[in-house]
């Protein structure tokens, strides 16, 4: 394997698989040698996973979690991108609103759980609201900073060709910030996936977060706890990989090249 440069196609798969294999073997023997009664071995987890599939819970829980993230994230995108673009476009508004945003931003979405339950009750809406909150601020901030960082000559060129303000936003500002917005969306989606697990532990009775907490509480089924953790990791990886494909689109790829 070369330190730099393109890896061979087979190398891109073989090395990560090998690492995963080594990890599983180490895990297996750690459990064997310490003779722990609580922590499951990879085989226990595999059996737990099969049980989840048999009961139909695996698919059901993954879909529930994804749906919550999907709805909350979508709402954050729909509200966050326009808000961010406007705040970047009108620095006066940003001057007024930004301090509040910057103050709310460091509050962990998990700290909002009690408030969210007071407002929306224990249930689906409270969980979705948390995901919305978690993804909204990164999206707003990425869009706002994106607009602020647009080189002035793009705006000037747009105005020079006789574009109205609305046309300028659609034809120049939006495409110019898109790479930065995509980065913001990716970060937001990552956070949303972290938060859904926490939200499901408290506010609802389905989903992968619920699976973790429920397996522990009802009979200390640590094989299911770890199975749920692995599912959370794999689904998160799939989401991120899917999102990364957006960065490969030809009309945004310029934003991800260093040499431009």
């Amino acid at each position, binding site marked *: 394997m070369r330190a730099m440069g393109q890896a061979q196609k087979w190398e891109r798969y073989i090395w990560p698989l090998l690492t995963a294999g080594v990890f599983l073997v180490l895990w297996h023997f750690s459990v064997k040698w310490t003779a722990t009664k609580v922590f499951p071995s990879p085989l226990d987890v595999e059996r737990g996973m099969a049980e989840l599939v048999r009961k139909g819970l695996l698919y059901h829980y993954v879909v529930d979690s994804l749906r919550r993230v999907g709805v909350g994230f979508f709402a954050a995108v729909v509200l966050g991108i326009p808000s961010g673009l406007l705040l970047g476009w009108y620095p006066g508004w940003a001057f007024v609103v930004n301090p509040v945003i910057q103050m709310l931003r460091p509050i962990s979405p998990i700290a909002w759980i009690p408030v969210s339950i007071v407002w929306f009750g224990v249930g689906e809406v409270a969980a979705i609201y948390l995901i919305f909150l978690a993804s909204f601020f990164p999206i707003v901030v990425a869009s706002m900073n994106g607009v602020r960082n647009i*080189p002035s000559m793009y705006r000037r*060129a747009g*105005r*020079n060709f*006789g574009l109205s303000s609305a046309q300028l936003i659609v*034809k120049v500002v939006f495409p*110019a910030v898109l790479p930065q917005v995509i980065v913001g969306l990716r970060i937001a989606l990552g956070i949303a996936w972290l938060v859904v697990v926490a939200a499901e532990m408290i506010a609802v009775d389905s989903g992968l977060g619920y699976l973790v907490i429920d397996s522990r509480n009802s009979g200390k089924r640590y094989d299911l706890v770890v199975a749920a953790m692995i599912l959370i990791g794999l689904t998160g990886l799939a989401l991120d990989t899917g999102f990364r494909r957006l960065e490969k689109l030809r009309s945004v*790829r310029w934003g991800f090249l260093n040499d*431009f």
Partner: protein
Amino acid sequence: MIEAIFTERAVKKGRALKTKLRAEGVNMVFNGDGHKVQVLQHIDLEVGDGEFVCLLGPSGCGKSTMLNIIAGFISPTGGQVWIDDEAVRCPDPRRIFVFQERGVFPWLTVEGNIGFGLFRLSKQERAQRIAHYIQLVGLQGFEKAYPQELSGGMKQRVEVARALAVNPDMLFLDEPFGALDSITRLIMRRELLRIWEAERKTVILVTHDIEESIQLADRVVIMSTRPAKIQQIVEIDIPHPRDISSPRYLELRDGIFEQIGLAHKV
């Protein structure tokens, strides 16, 4: 003695062109951190229709500011610029500003960039115009390429083509070839002259490169250091294509070197 040469020639040739642009007493004062910086001081300038004028001056003297005022991107703190007897208040698609090649939109293809200003035309007309200007700047085969796949010189061609495609009367070029390597720069100058001769736009080009100004312009407007005033206007009375080792070329070049206060010995 050099002044004598300049004035004599200028008077002999005269200005037969119709006036396109008139700047009267343009002043520009920027407010920076509480203290005022005067950038332009009482600039009077006339540019004829179809003329190629270079604003020449040292870096940071305010010549770009002047061009931005002419283009309507900033308003002067005093004086007024008139184009076709109309006061300039904002940018106008009849007069296109060409930035260094960094002004091309990286999210659009070559075609998309060149067609950017043509949103009022029908699809068919737009396609025709784009094809025409792609040919004019020699970018056939790169229609679907994105700017990051092009060299600096090609990006500059895209920007010039984008400007020409809306058929403006005037082109403003702000050190357009400054970021290019010296060979590409020479090629681009020749290209610009070829296009200028084909399309006869009025061109105002800002540069700090003395040779560039003499190779391109009908008249070179020499600006002083800040606050910029017009120090001298030099008529370049050499027909195109210009022989850059002819005695007249060297005479004019040396005159400008001296005017700017540079000895031309390195």
